[in-house]
C-alpha cells in the first residue's frame, strides 16, 4: 500500500503519465483500483439498500427528480462488462457513455474528470474482477424536460470544465495529493459546494456548504465560525478516519461516507486531504455575526427547553463530550446559515458514525413527538446563539415544512 502511494506521489510530482507498470489484470493494478474505488466511495451510490455491491439501483433525489445509479458490475448485458478502458475513462472524464450519450452529473464526472488515465484504468481493472450481477436499472427517472439526455450537451457547455488534475509545482506532493483527492476522486464538492439553478457547481462558493437530500453539507473552507478554520490537521484526520473528534461526530450522509470510505483510506491520504483543506482560503474572513440577544423571547424559551431536554448529554456548557455527544458550542454545523441538518436531527434523530476507531456509534433520539414546531425552532435558535455561537433564528414554519417530509413526523 505504501508503495502505491509513493508511486502516485511521484507521478503527481513529476507530472508523469506512467505511474505504474504491468498489465491491467495484475494484482497490483487491481489492488490499486480497489483502494481508489474506496477513495471515491463508488459503492455508496452504486449499491441499492440491501442490494449487491456495485449493482446500482440507489435512487438519488435531485432537485430535478430521481436518478437511479447504474449497475457497474462486469455484467456484459446490464453492467459495464463490455466497456473498454477507453470507454470507462470517457465516462469518468467527459461524462459520455460508449453509445455517445451523456451522463447526468449526479455521477460526479465534473470532479472525476481530474482523474489520471492510470487511475481510471486501475478502477476499471478492479471493477472487472467483481462478480457480474445481471440487473437492469432504469437510471433516468427524471420528468420532462430533464429526461432528455441531449440537454446535457448544453449543460456541459455551461457548467463543465474537462481536464485532468494538474499538480501545482509550488506546492508539496502531499498538498497535491490532497487536492487530487478533494477536487477529484473524493468529489467533496459534489455535496459541499452550492449549486446554481442548473445544478452545476457554483464555483464562486467552492466548498462553502450546500443542502442536499434533506441535509446541509456544511462549509468546509477555513472560516472560523462556519468552516473548519479552528480545526487542526489532526482534528480533520481523526474526523475522517473515525467519524468523530473532540468537537463533533459525523452524522447523515457524511457518517456513511466515513464508514464506507474515508475510515478505510491510508493515513497518508487522510493527512494529504487535511493539509489541502487547511490551506483553502476562508470564504468569509471578516465574518462578525452577532448573536440574537439572550433575553429575546425565542432565546429564553429555547434555554428552558435546552436545560430540560438537551443538557443531560450536551451539557450546560454546550461542550458535549468527546466521541459521544457533539459539542454545540463553537460548532460550525450548528451555525450554518441553513439549519436543515439541525431541524432534521431533532425531528428524526440520527445515529453518528461508528468505526473501529470510535465504535460507540452514539445516537441522538428523535424529539418529534415531544417537541412541537415552535419548541424545536426555539431550542435551535438558542443553541445557534449561545456560548459564542451566532446564527439566524429558526422559524417554526421551517420546522413544520421539514416535519411534513419526515418519516413519522
Amino acid at each position, binding site marked *: 500500500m505504501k508503495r502505491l502511494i509513493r508511486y502516485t506521489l511521484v507521478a503527481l510530482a513529476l507530472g508523469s503519465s506512467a505511474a505504474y507498470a504491468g498489465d491491467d489484470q495484475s494484482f497490483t493494478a487491481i489492488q490499486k483500483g480497489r483502494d481508489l474505488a474506496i477513495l471515491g466511495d463508488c459503492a455508496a451510490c452504486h449499491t441499492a439498500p440491501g442490494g449487491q455491491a456495485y449493482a446500482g439501483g440507489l435512487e438519488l433525489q435531485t432537485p430535478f427528480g430521481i436518478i437511479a445509479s447504474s449497475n457497474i458490475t462486469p455484467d456484459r448485458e446490464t453492467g459495464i462488462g463490455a466497456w473498454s478502458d477507453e470507454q470507462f475513462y470517457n465516462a469518468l472524464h467527459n461524462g459520455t457513455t460508449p453509445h455517445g450519450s451523456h451522463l447526468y452529473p449526479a455521477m460526479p464526472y465534473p470532479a472525476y474528470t481530474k482523474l489520471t488515465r492510470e487511475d481510471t484504468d486501475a478502477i476499471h481493472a478492479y471493477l472487472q474482477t467483481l462478480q457480474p450481477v445481471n440487473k437492469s436499472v432504469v437510471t433516468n427517472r427524471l420528468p420532462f424536460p430533464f429526461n432528455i439526455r441531449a440537454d446535457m450537451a448544453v449543460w456541459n457547455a455551461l457548467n463543465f470544465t474537462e481536464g485532468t488534475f494538474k499538480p501545482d509545482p509550488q506546492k508539496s506532493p502531499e498538498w497535491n495529493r490532497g487536492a487530487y483527492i478533494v477536487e477529484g476522486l473524493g468529489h467533496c464538492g459534489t455535496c459541499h459546494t452550492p449549486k446554481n439553478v442548473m445544478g452545476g457547481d457554483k464555483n464562486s462558493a467552492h466548498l462553502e456548504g450546500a443542502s442536499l437530500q434533506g441535509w446541509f453539507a456544511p462549509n468546509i473552507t477555513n472560516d472560523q465560525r462556519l468552516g473548519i478554520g479552528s480545526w487542526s490537521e489532526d482534528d480533520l484526520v481523526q474526523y475522517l478516519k473515525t467519524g468523530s473528534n473532540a468537537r463533533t461526530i459525523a452524522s447523515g450522509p457524511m457518517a456513511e461516507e466515513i464508514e464506507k470510505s474515508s475510515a478505510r483510506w491510508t493515513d497518508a491520504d487522510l493527512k494529504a486531504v487535511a493539509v489541502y483543506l487547511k490551506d483553502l482560503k476562508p470564504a468569509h474572513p471578516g465574518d462578525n455575526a452577532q448573536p440574537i440577544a439572550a433575553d429575546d423571547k425565542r432565546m429564553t424559551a429555547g434555554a428552558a427547553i435546552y436545560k430540560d431536554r438537551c443538557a443531560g448529554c450536551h451539557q450546560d456548557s454546550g461542550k458535549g463530550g468527546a466521541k459521544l455527544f457533539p459539542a454545540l458550542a463553537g460548532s460550525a454545523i450548528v451555525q450554518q446559515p441553513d439549519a436543515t441538518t439541525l431541524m432534521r436531527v431533532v425531528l428524526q434523530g440520527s445515529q453518528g458514525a461508528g468505526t*473501529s476507531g470510535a465504535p460507540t456509534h452514539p445516537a441522538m433520539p428523535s424529539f418529534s413527538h415531544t417537541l412541537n414546531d415552535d419548541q424545536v425552532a426555539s431550542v435551535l435558535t438558542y443553541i445557534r446563539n449561545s456560548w459564542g455561537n451566532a446564527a439566524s433564528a429558526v422559524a417554526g414554519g421551517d420546522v413544520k415544512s421539514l416535519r411534513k417530509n419526515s418519516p413519522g413526523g
Partner: protein
Amino acid sequence: MAQKLPHKDVVIIGLGWTASILANELTDEGLEVVAIERGPWRDTGTDFNINYVQDELRYGIRLDLFQRPTQDTVTFRNNGDQTALPVRQFGSFLPGNGVGGAGVHWNGHTWRFLPSDFRCRSHLEERYGANFIPSELSIQDWGVTYEEMEASYDKFEYLAGISGQAGNLNGQQTGHGNPFEGPRKRDYPQGPLPMNYGPTIFAEAARKCGYHPFPTPAANSSGFYTNPLGLTMGPCTMCGFCERFACANYSKASAQVNVLPHLMQKSNFEARTNCEVMKINLDSTGKKATGVTYVDSSGEEWEQTADLVISCAFIFENVRLLMLSGIGEIYDPKTQKGTIGRNYAYQTNSGIQMFFDDKNFNPFIAAGALGQSVDDFNGDNFDHSGLDFVGGSGFNCIPTNARPILNRPTPPGTPKWGSEWKKATKDHYLSTLSYSLQGSSYASPGNHLDMDPAYTDRFGRPLMRMTFDFPDNDIRMTSYCTDKAAEIAKQLNPKQMVVSKRKKPYSVVPYQSTHNTGGAIMGTDPTKSALNRYLQSWDVPNLFVIGANAFPQNAGYNPTGTVGALAFWAAEAIRTQYLKNPGALVQA
C-alpha cells in the same frame, strides 16, 4: 427434525454481560463465534430513547424489558413437603430478557467479594474452629481465591468504567473507600459520583457510630470515560431511572454500551436473536458437547454445531439447560448426591425507613448506585466469636429513585388510598430516607433447584422447580445486622423510623432481589460441584457455564462485579489453557 447449520468454533447461549465478554475475548483469538439469544435485539440508539425510556408504567410496572412468564418461569415451594406452583407473575426476582439481559435494567452496584468469601468454609473453620459453622449450612470454597480473581475484577471494572474509591491499594489502606475490601492493584477507573444529601448525612451518622462509610462502587458513570475497547460512556444525569429501566445516556454500564458496538464490528462474530436454545447436544459418549439445538421465532428448529459451548444465560436457564441436556446428575436433597441444582441461594435483605419533617432530600435526584455503603458487618469483617451465626450484611444508603407510581413512602397506619393517603404521600415524598441491608445467603442442603414433575413450558419441557426458604442462620444474621444498622438511624433522630426485618417463610411475591445464585456451582470436588475452578463442566469439558449459577453461596453484595470477573477468569483460562490443549483443565 432440526436443520443443521454450518459449523462454528464456539456457540454461546445468551447475549448479556458474560456472553458479550466471552464472545469478545474469543473472537480476539480468531475464533468463529455465534451467540444465540432468546429475546430481541436492543441497542441504546434505537430502543432506549430518552423521550420514553423513563416510562414507569411501561418499564417499571408492566416490566417491558423482562422475561415474560409465558416464555419461561419457575415453580416454587418453600420446602420438600410442599407442592410447587408456577410463578405466573414475577415478583421477588425479575429475570431479564433480550440482548444485554439483566445487565440492561440493573442499578449498577459493582462489588468485589471479600477474600474470605471465596474461601468461605476454610476461612470460617480456620478462624473459629471446625464445628463453628451451623450444621444446616452446606457452604463451600469456590476453588478460586480473591488474589487469583483480582486481575479479572480489574478487567471488568475498567471495561464497565466503574466509579468508586479504592480502600485498599496493594495492601495499603488509602484512608477512604472501603477499608475491608481485598487489596486491589489500582484504583477504580473513575472517581466516585458527586454525593447527594441523603447518603451524605447517612455517612456522617455512620461515622458517629464508629462505622466506615464509603461511596458505593457504581456502574453509573461519574464522567466521560472511554474503555479499553474504545467505547465511550457519558456522565450520569441522575434521572433516577436505573433499576427496571435502560439508560438512554450511555451512562450505565451494560453490554450495549461497553462491549457490543465493538463486538458487532467483528466479522467472526454473529448474534442470532429471538432464538431459544432447547438443549445442549452431546455425542454418544455423553462426555462431549456437539453444539446446541434452538428454535427461531417462526418455530423452525436448527442445530448449531460447535467445538466449544459456553452457556451464558441467567442462572435459571443455565441450570435448566444442564438438566434438560442430561449433563451431570441432578441433585437430590434426601441423599445429598448429585451436583446440578445444588446450593441454590439468594439474598437476605432488610430495610430501615426514616420519616423526617425538617428535611428535604430531593429524592428524584438519584442514580442506581449513587450512595454510601458500610461494610463493617458484611461477610466476616466482624468477629463472629460468641455469635450464633455466620455471614453478614452490607448497609447501603442508595436512594435509587423517587418515581411517581411506586415510590410513595407513607408511615405505617396510613390508608392505602383516599384523601388521607394523598396527604401523607405529599407530606413524606421529599422528606423520607431509606437504607437497606443486603445480607449473605448461605447454602443449605434443602435449598435447591430441580425439574418440576408437573408443569412444562410452551415447548413442553419441564419447568425449573425452586425449593427455598431462608436458613435460620441467615435469619439470625440479618436480625443482628439490622440492629447494628438501626444505630445509624438513631443518630439521625428521625421523627419516626420503621425497621423491617426479614422473616421466614420466603415469599416469591414482593420484590426482594434478582440475585439468584447457585445451582451449577464451581468448586474443587466433582461430587459437590458442577463446574471446576474455571467454570468448566466436570462432566463435559468442552462446556463452560458462566454466571452467578457458579456461586457456591451468595455473599452480602450485588453479584454483577463477580459475575463479570468470572467471565474474564473463564475467558483467560480458555484462551491461555483450553485452546492449546482442549480437555479438562482440572483432573477430577
